[in-house]
């Protein structure tokens, strides 16, 4: 491995306040700590206890074995309860509480045992068992706490990474980063870089601008027209560089309408459609218009009208399934935001050939002045 790791710094606080430093919230525990205690750990613990019992049976004087066994049983119950406690509360506080519980319960039992049994020379044995038992149990609890904390932490991290990847994929999908668009752009870029063409730099900054404006675009349910238009301008700049004379663009959107909001990606979808179905199929290329205006028809509610027009072959009589989905999807999102018939999206044949897509939605007066 080439990855170098910084030397671990010793956490001295573990000496007086041992246990995992991180405290998991209830939500985190619910997310990554719902599983019960590890069965492997239980088996290993029981095996160790069995060995301890065996050793005591062999080595301790016969007259104290009964009392010792009671103490061991008390330890066993107390420590498993404590381990369970730590399992669900893998923090310093949880470990402290569990350690105290696991120490005091056997002490109390031992004291009771000793008050029944007459004082004899086996005090040493009880002392040894108590001290050893407490030591073993506390160390065990410490391990349980640390192990458990790491388990939950790595699960949370894993989940966060996965969610991040999904989120990124969702955003890319939402941004409709069409692979054809991306790779064709990269193909031009590659060539212009190879040949030292000055267009490389312009294309790269247009593509960067496009990515930067489209990726966060879908974070909000509604986007100011000005922001959407910024993405569209970058997109059209990329296409203009790639297609050269084949693409002419005219954008006429008054700045006063920049704050009007609409679902993100709508305008971009219409522009992409116009390019794909209106401009690219033409041998000589074509012209694309993006226009916005305030529709103050008397009697009706005030609305914003946004148009994307091309001078291509015009809308197909029966749109291909793919084009249909893009348009249907856009229409649904628009009507989800503003309702029907307040907001409409229509595609029609333009006067003098070509297609015109038109979105109308309610004008928001309070949105006119930007915050």
């Amino acid at each position: 491995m080439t990855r170098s790791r910084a030397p671990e710094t010793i956490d001295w606080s573990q000496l007086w306040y041992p246990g995992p430093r991180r405290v998991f919230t209830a939500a985190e525990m619910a997310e990554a700590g719902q599983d019960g205690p590890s069965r492997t750990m239980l088996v290993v613990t029981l095996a160790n206890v069995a060995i301890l019992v065996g050793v005591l049976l062999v080595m301790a004087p016969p007259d104290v074995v009964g009392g010792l066994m009671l103490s061991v049983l008390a330890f066993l119950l107390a420590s498993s309860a404590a381990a369970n406690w730590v399992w669900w509360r893998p923090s310093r506080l949880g470990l402290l509480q569990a350690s105290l519980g696991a120490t005091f319960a056997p002490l109390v039992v031992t004291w009771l045992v000793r008050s029944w049994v007459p004082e004899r020379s086996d005090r040493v044995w009880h002392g040894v068992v108590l001290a050893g038992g407490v030591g073993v149990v506390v160390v065990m609890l410490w391990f349980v706490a640390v192990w458990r904390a790491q388990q939950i932490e790595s699960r949370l991290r894993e989940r966060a990474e996965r969610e991040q990847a999904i989120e990124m994929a969702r955003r890319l999908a939402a941004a409709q980063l069409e692979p054809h668009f991306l790779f064709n752009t990269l193909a031009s870029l590659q060539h212009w870089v190879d040949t030292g063409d000055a267009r490389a730099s312009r294309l790269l900054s247009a593509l960067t601008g496009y990515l930067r404006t489209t990726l966060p675009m879908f974070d909000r349910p509604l986007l100011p027209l000005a922001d959407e238009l910024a993405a569209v301008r970058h997109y059209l700049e990329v296409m203009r560089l790639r297609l050269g004379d084949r693409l002419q663009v005219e954008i006429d959107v008054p700045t006063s309408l920049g704050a009007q909001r609409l679902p993100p990606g709508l305008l971009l979808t219409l522009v992409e459609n116009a390019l794909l179905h209106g401009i690219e199929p033409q041998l000589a290329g074509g012209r694309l218009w993006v226009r916005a205006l305030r529709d103050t028809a008397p009697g009706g509610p005030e609305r914003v009208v946004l148009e994307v027009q091309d001078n291509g072959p015009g809308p197909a009589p029966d749109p291909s399934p793919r084009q249909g989905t893009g348009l249907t999807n856009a229409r649904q999102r628009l009507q989800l935001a503003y309702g029907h018939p307040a907001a409409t999206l229509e595609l029609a044949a333009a006067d003098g050939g070509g297609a015109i897509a038109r979105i109308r939605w309610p004008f928001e007066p309070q949105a006119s002045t930007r915050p």
Partner: protein
Amino acid sequence: MNTRQATALVADDEEAPRDQLLAGLRSAWPELDVVAVAGNGVDAWDAFLEHEPDLCFLDIRMPGLSGIEVARRIGERAAVVFATAHGDHALAAFDAGAVDYLLKPVTADRLAQTVQRLRLRLASVPGGADPTALAAVLARLTAAQPRRLPTVLQATVGREVRLIPVDEVVYFEADARYTRVVHAGGDALIRTPLKELLAQLDEQQFWQVHRSTIVHHRHIAAAVRGDEGQMHLLLRGRSERLTVSRHFQGLFKGQ
């Protein structure tokens, strides 16, 4: 081994990827003779008929005719290599079959492989691609390409614009930069070049029989083969004879 220099056609509607491929070919295959470069599907098909290259490098998305449609017309007469920006599902088929494909931006390594493959093919199978593999791929790809066909043509004659229903057309003939439309009621010139018109016509109805002639099949009475391999069409109720060029003689093979 073919001693003649291999010839190629390169078609892409975008300048930069096209130039990139040309530059790549120059270094990967210096002796390859690129006889034609086209910026759309219509020009690509026309250039194919004019130059008859051994190899065709075709972008898939092109105006006029798509690379797929050009390849289908070329059929077995040349080895076709598709260039595309994105690996559509059909690429698996290309990979397995006779036709090769290149992903844009084209890398030198990948192009070298293609060149290797093409050299082998030219050396072993004169005439090009494995027809069954190509046909299978193309059948799948062409299914999803709806096309809108004009029903009426508008020809300017002096001061008037005459409307000619497309199904009354007998044949089209390229005439310099115009196209002569011969129809039931006479003939007229339209401004759309024949090669562009071709992309707008229903192939089932209108058969291209020559680089500069498209005939409505209903009006063909017979195809007559001459002594030196040439072929002519006789039309129903008309005296003129149309030449069928070598490329299209396969349309008339009898049953």
